[in-house]
């Protein structure tokens, strides 16, 4: 069995249900995109704090192995929107 599925014929009710729920999900998705956009300014502050921590306390390489990241390794922000939802 490739997928854990036994092939079957979808009922009309099932097809309708999937279509209705997909439309609802699309609304939820758009709301998430909006909410995550609204978080942008706060997220920029979090990123600054993260950079500070990995330069002082250290970046988690593996479990409790940490490495302090030197200045010249910090990434520079690219000229494009900072997306977190795809």
């Amino acid at each position, binding site marked *: 069995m490739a997928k854990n599925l036994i092939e079957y014929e979808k009922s009309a009710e099932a097809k309708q249900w999937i279509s209705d729920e997909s439309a609802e999900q699309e609304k939820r998705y758009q709301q998430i995109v909006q909410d995550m956009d609204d978080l942008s300014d706060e997220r920029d502050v979090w990123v600054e704090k993260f950079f500070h921590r990995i330069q002082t306390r250290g970046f988690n*390489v593996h479990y409790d192995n940490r490495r302090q990241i030197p200045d010249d390794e910090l990434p520079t922000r690219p000229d494009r929107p900072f997306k977190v939802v795809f």
Partner: protein
Amino acid sequence: MGRPHIEPYVETDVPFRRMTLPGFGKGMHYKVLSLDSDTGACSLVVKFESGYSLPPGMSYTEMELYVVEGSLQVGDKTFETGHYLWLPPGVSLPALSSPNGARCLMFYNYGEPSFVESDEDHPRAERHKMVSVNALEDIVWGPANVSPSVAPGCFVKVLKFDPLTHGFTFMYCMTPNFWQDNISYHDCMEEGYHVWGTSWMMQFGYLPTGGYFWRPPWINHGAFQSTYGCLAIGRTDSQLHNYFHFNPWTTPEENQERAAAQLYRQKRNLYEWVRAQDGHNHPHDFEHPHYRDHVHHDDHD
């Protein structure tokens, strides 16, 4: 188009809907956490009213169930809070009832929720694979057994492990004052639901009790923190590898290319074999000769 990136989603204040799909009867209510719009595969929060009952029956797709609150009576067994069931497709589950009500998570992984009344297994059912365990009481917490690993203070209980894909379902927890200062992504999908507590991720902010994510491959998540700890259930569809880095602005495409570069460094011989000079070689597993049928869809040979 499969399931979209749903993250973060908090279901707590969302109303339940009455389940109207054939077979499930009265007294079952649900909220969709995520849904595959092609197949109907979905992850649901389900509320069973007290007095709900369902005759013996099977599902066409594999189904995973986790009891968040309350209990279920399944045949002569009681599924208390924390019970986890993995029901392979076609396996007949004894009569199910909820004398005092229950709230559960239900994962229908390859098709919409289906229920066919039957007290016998389907001829293709693989009953020996079924898992039924109390995740809170029957299994102990252990460190996440992966390298590179999550930071100290994140513990895991494996509920179901697929030996072919290494996809797994697991409980995870973060201890109070957990922190992990890196950004992670994976080459598998990752799903999670907070049974209790709050964690924080640099991209998505705070995820409280009832918080959920369905995250396709290659998407950045982390750094991570939890002030008071959290308890969650998670799933992947194949082996979980942590690709850690510290660039918050990379795209999924860049992350994917970087993962391939790591594969080239870390599995050089295998990479060279798959990517042959004149095209590519095909995987073949002598233990599972037909498995390729669904890992390789190209027409050529």
